[in-house]
């Protein structure tokens, strides 16, 4: 006997039923306990940035565990979503977390294109949002908002200092290569600004679509152009492959490779000998002489049997920043004004060093020069002290 009911209605009912069972109505009834704070983690758990998503999640949870499982007196309930680094699904995914799962805080993400979708949803809904990685300049620039904070960097900030470093080391001409998406293009702009200001000249610009890793033809082009050095931006799986391919093509010795730290953070074990000696700039390094860093690295390694990287530090600080805000309002997430004010005025005691929140809600931090030695990005010097993103177009800095 076939089912004659309208399947569409049947599905809608089933979907509605599922939504109800997933809602807080089914939460266990406990007396006199504040409801858990819903933290939405929208990060990549698949694809070239999966390791980054995992590192951020691990470190965030580590901080919460260090504080006894509570932030600002409230226990934390996680709603985890894999954004697959897909900008086309970003608005849908963020919308689902905010409108259906009703998260109190939105934490994410890694990919700058996806971030722009999240920023759109954050601005429309007013949900407190903390960005633990994506450096899209606009998030604390033209599209800055009181409820959006970042504990990582702006794309510009990670690579601006590299130009000066390269010129000081005698490389007056450079080739650039990166993925052609929002982050890649912003990295290029930041690099170009810093490099040309220091007297350098970009002789070749090479792009390939994200997340393509077929570098062969373009590496051949770099060799043909014969620049003094190559500057690039790659991260995650792509960074691993590029460094190896660059070395296999014999270019590493003749045309030194530079980049911002994402090229060598979290990737050194896979890159092996190919990465040795590469200089990068970033707001974190593996051998910082900071007590908080030593403590953090010990705890992280003990808990996860892995070495932490810059992504983990950013995730850790995201939890820290949230904690600061929540403690100031005694866990009442609805006291938005007070919450935001507390978060704006804090100095974060981070494994990377102490940093303050800029008016546009981005970290003001030192940019370190690091070199790959063994399986570490060893600290060499401070490439730029207290580097602050210019926050072009942000109305909050007015």
């Amino acid at each position, binding site marked *: 006997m076939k089912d004659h009911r309208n399947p569409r209605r049947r599905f809608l009912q089933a979907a509605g039923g599922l939504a109800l069972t997933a809602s807080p109505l089914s939460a266990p009834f406990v007396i006199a306990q504040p409801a858990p704070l819903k933290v939405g983690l929208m990060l990549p758990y698949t*694809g070239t940035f999966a390791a980054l998503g995992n590192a951020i999640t691990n470190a965030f949870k580590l901080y919460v565990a260090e504080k006894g499982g509570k932030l600002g007196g409230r226990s934390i309930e996680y709603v985890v979503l894999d954004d697959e680094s897909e900008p086309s699904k970003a608005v849908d995914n963020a919308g689902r977390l905010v409108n259906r799962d009703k998260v109190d805080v939105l934490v994410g993400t890694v990919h700058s294109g996806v971030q722009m979708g999240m920023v759109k949803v954050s601005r429309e809904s007013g949900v407190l949002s903390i960005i633990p990685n994506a450096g899209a300049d606009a998030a604390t620039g033209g599209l800055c908002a009181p409820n959006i904070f970042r504990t990582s960097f702006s794309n510009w900030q990670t690579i601006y200092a590299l130009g000066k470093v390269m010129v000081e080391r005698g490389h007056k001409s450079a080739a650039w290569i990166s993925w052609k998406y929002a982050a890649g293009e912003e990295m290029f702009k930041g690099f170009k600004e810093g490099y040309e200001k220091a007297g350098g000249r970009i002789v070749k610009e090479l792009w390939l679509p994200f997340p393509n890793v077929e570098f*062969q033809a373009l590496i051949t082009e770099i060799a043909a152009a*014969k620049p003094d050095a190559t500057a690039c931006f790659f991260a995650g*799986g792509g960074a*691993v492959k590029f460094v190896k391919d660059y070395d296999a*093509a014999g270019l590493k010795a003749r045309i030194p490779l530079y980049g911002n730290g994402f090229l060598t953070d979290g990737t050194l074990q896979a890159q092996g000998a190919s990465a040795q000696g590469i200089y990068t700039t970033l707001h974190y390094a593996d051998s910082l002489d900071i007590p908080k860093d030593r403590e953090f690295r010990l705890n992280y390694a003990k808990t996860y049997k892995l070495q932490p990287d810059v992504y983990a530090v950013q995730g850790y600080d995201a939890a820290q920043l949230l904690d600061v805000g929540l403690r100031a309002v005694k866990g009442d997430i609805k006291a938005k004004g007070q919450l935001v004010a507390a978060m704006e005025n804090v100095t974060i005691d981070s494994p990377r060093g102490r940093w303050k929140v800029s008016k546009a809600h981005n970290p003001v931090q030192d940019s370190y020069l690091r070199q790959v030695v063994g399986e570490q990005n060893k600290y060499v010097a401070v490439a730029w002290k207290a580097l602050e993103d210019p926050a072009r177009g942000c109305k909050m800095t007015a």
Partner: protein
Amino acid sequence: MDPVIFLIQVLNGVQYGLLLFLVASGLTLIFGILGIINLAHGSFYMVGAYLAFSLTERMGNFWLALAAGVLLAVALGMALEWLVMRFLYPRDHLYQVLLTYGLILVFEEARSLIWGDDVHGVQVPAALDFSIPLTDTLSYQVWRLVMSAVCLAIAAAMYWLIQRTRLGMMIRAGAVNREMVQSLGIDIGLLYRVVFALGVALAALAGMLAAPVSSVFPGMGNQVLIISFVVVVIGGIGSVKGALVAALLIGLADTFGKVLLPQLAGMVVYLLMAAVLLWRPQGIFGRT
């Protein structure tokens, strides 16, 4: 462009093209002989790459892993044909498209369950892990040359198989007239199973060979799939010779496109396909 650089880019293009040939040849056989549009063909490429990754780790030797991987792929092909594919022969192309699209999802998630979602690298076998200098700045990875050599060897083997063996004769006959072959008393069921398994194995082998240079990552089958279809259509459905010519053409077009016309690089391959389809729909070596 510097002549040496030009030659190196040609080498790059040929290497990419030969790899495409491996994948596309399987697809063109399945399409031409069995008459099935198999959208899941890219998934076999991915399976091959992931097999290379875990088998090399397990067995410690890349070549052993390759052999084991090919055997597993053949088994997978036979099983898949028997379980699912043979119900598609009488069906309209549309249903084949739909069902194999469902298979892509199944394979992708199965991969996620078995191997997880990270990106992985596969080490080039130690004996071949070096580069030969070609200019004063640029070296070429020997492994890429080995890959191309293997692809050429397989192309030769396929030529011998199709032109000089009984099986090949049946394949050629089946491509021209399926019904006639059936009425000649040949066990068409077994023939189809063998051909399908061959197609799967070719795609998986391509994935295994490419794994050291392309990395192993989720969704790696998608790009290969669509380009393979382009190769098959341009070369002519059912023609292995056509697949070789078309694959080389596309490998070169793609490589030089990236370098000379980066703005239009992505479109080049499809412009080529559209042009061929509008001028000679059956492809370069296809039958009318």
